[in-house]
């Protein structure tokens, strides 16, 4: 019945008509600008290439990840908190389709925030270091653009996994607070976990989400620790993502809407 894209349009409206979303984009632009200026001032007279400048700013992508987790946390839980879930689910659409529209809107948002981030950091970097565009950091046989795009892809996968985790917690606990909290926990303890439970010493750790999230470890055909490969990590990540979606779907579909 009807057109599924209108549901996605609705979800988009609920994301982009909130001032919060524009504050997120504003914060990203401001932080990119702020750190560019800071690096420029700190660098003194020595100039780096624009590509290196972009790479220097990429740590700020954490902000995009946090914002994506926040939007994901609210997209289902918000409807419960606002009480609007009661009006949303009594339309001629199955719960599966309603949830799918939310998932699609979330994925579109993660893509948008990623594009905004990299456009902003690229434009600002090229504007600040227009004179020197050959990279010192990258060797001649690699195109900096290709390298950057590969880097974006790895970082985006990381963001998407966290956003989908947040989406699941949001659907299961109907609380955006818990969803944001747990996603941040995963985001920031991933590194510590990998150090504490090195897969070389703890073979089971290979199968945890944390040690597989950073796909850049396989860059240039390198092999990971404890015989892990790119294919292995992709399989593990994909399994987790499917699990997150399956749990979200089952809980959302079965839940009695009581409050």
């Amino acid at each position, binding site marked *: *019945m*009807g057109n599924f894209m*209108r*549901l996605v*349009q*609705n979800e988009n*409206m*609920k994301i982009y*008509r*909130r*001032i919060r979303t524009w504050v997120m984009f504003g914060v990203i632009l401001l932080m990119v600008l702020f750190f560019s200026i800071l690096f420029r001032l700190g660098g003194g007279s020595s100039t780096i290439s624009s590509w290196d400048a972009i790479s220097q700013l990429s740590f700020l992508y954490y902000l995009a990840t946090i914002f994506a987790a926040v939007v994901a946390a609210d997209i289902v839980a918000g409807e419960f908190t*606002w*009480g*609007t879930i*009661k*009006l949303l*689910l*009594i*339309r*001629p*659409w*199955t719960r599966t389709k309603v949830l799918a529209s939310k998932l699609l809107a979330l994925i579109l948002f993660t893509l948008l925030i990623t594009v905004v981030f990299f456009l902003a950091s690229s434009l600002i970097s090229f504007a600040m270091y227009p004179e020197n565009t050959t990279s010192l950091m990258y060797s001649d046989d690699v195109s900096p653009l290709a390298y950057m795009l590969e880097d974006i892809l790895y970082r985006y996968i990381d963001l998407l996994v966290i956003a989908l985790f947040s989406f699941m917690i949001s659907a299961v606990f109907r609380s955006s607070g818990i969803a944001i909290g747990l996603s941040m926990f995963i985001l920031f303890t991933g590194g510590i976990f990998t150090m504490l439970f090195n897969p070389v010493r703890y073979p089971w750790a290979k199968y945890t989400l944390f040690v597989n999230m950073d796909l850049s470890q396989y860059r240039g055909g390198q092999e990971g620790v404890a015989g892990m490969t790119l294919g292995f990590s992709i399989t593990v990540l994909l399994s987790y993502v499917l699990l997150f979606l399956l749990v979200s779907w089952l809980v959302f579909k*079965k839940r*009695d*809407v*009581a409050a």
Partner: protein
Amino acid sequence: MDLEPVVRMKGVSKRIGSKTIIDNLTLDIPPGQVYGFLGPNGAGKTTTIRMMVGLMAITAGDIEIQGASITKQFETAISHVGAIVENPEMYKFLSGYQNLLHYARMSPGVSKQRIAEVIELVGLQQRIHDKVKTYSLGMRQRLGVAQAILHRPKLLVLDEPTNGLDPQGIRELRSYLRQLAEEEGTTIFVSSHLLSEMELMCDTVAVIQQGRLIDVRSLHDQDAVANEQKKTMFEVSDPERARELIGQGQIMDSHLLLDIDRDTAAAINERLVLSGISVYRIAVVTRTLEDQFIELTGGGQIG
């Protein structure tokens, strides 16, 4: 006119854990009526309504809307329904218009023109482009009615719609509902614990208590009303002696209540006066639905 019921509840039960919330409820709602669903708090009204609109799973039995099962043919069944389940919660960060647009997109065939028509019907033209967070409760209620009738549903379900409304808002709502039932032939199913409210609004009332249907009665069956619900009240100087003299009746607040017609009332008056009992006032009192309801539910204990 087809007289197939709009809603058919067939042996509906809801159990949560070992607790039975709704117990084998069977009820048909005929088309074109304002049908009341009455019961004390905690009787299972909201649970029943939530099962009716698919927000809650049904443990046993089934509910059909226009012949389509809400569990097996959800999309078809629900397309006939418009509802306000408890307070009409809206997206506060959106304008009233955007809220309506949101729901309009979810139902096939709701045009921009229809949205404008509904806005006019509920009288929100002036404020429709303001954010919902600036609305008063009464305005939100109107917006709630607007979203419920956008797609011209055959059945309108309202759960405790008058909660928190001021008397003027209640009167407005009542007149919308009457208008819908009479002009568009919409069947309206409305739950409430406010009995006097139901009397003013409904054609038929189903009474539910502790998850069980205990009575269904028409409120427009005037003969039944006249016979069943009216008593004659005598305000006299000595109600005890008056009762002895007449040999029937019940005493309430030092009034004597009798089930009699007008001729008998005149005769009894004469006898009382001749026996030296002063009669200050004779009046016909109507037993309200409220009295009957309390009678039925035994004072409304929640168990």
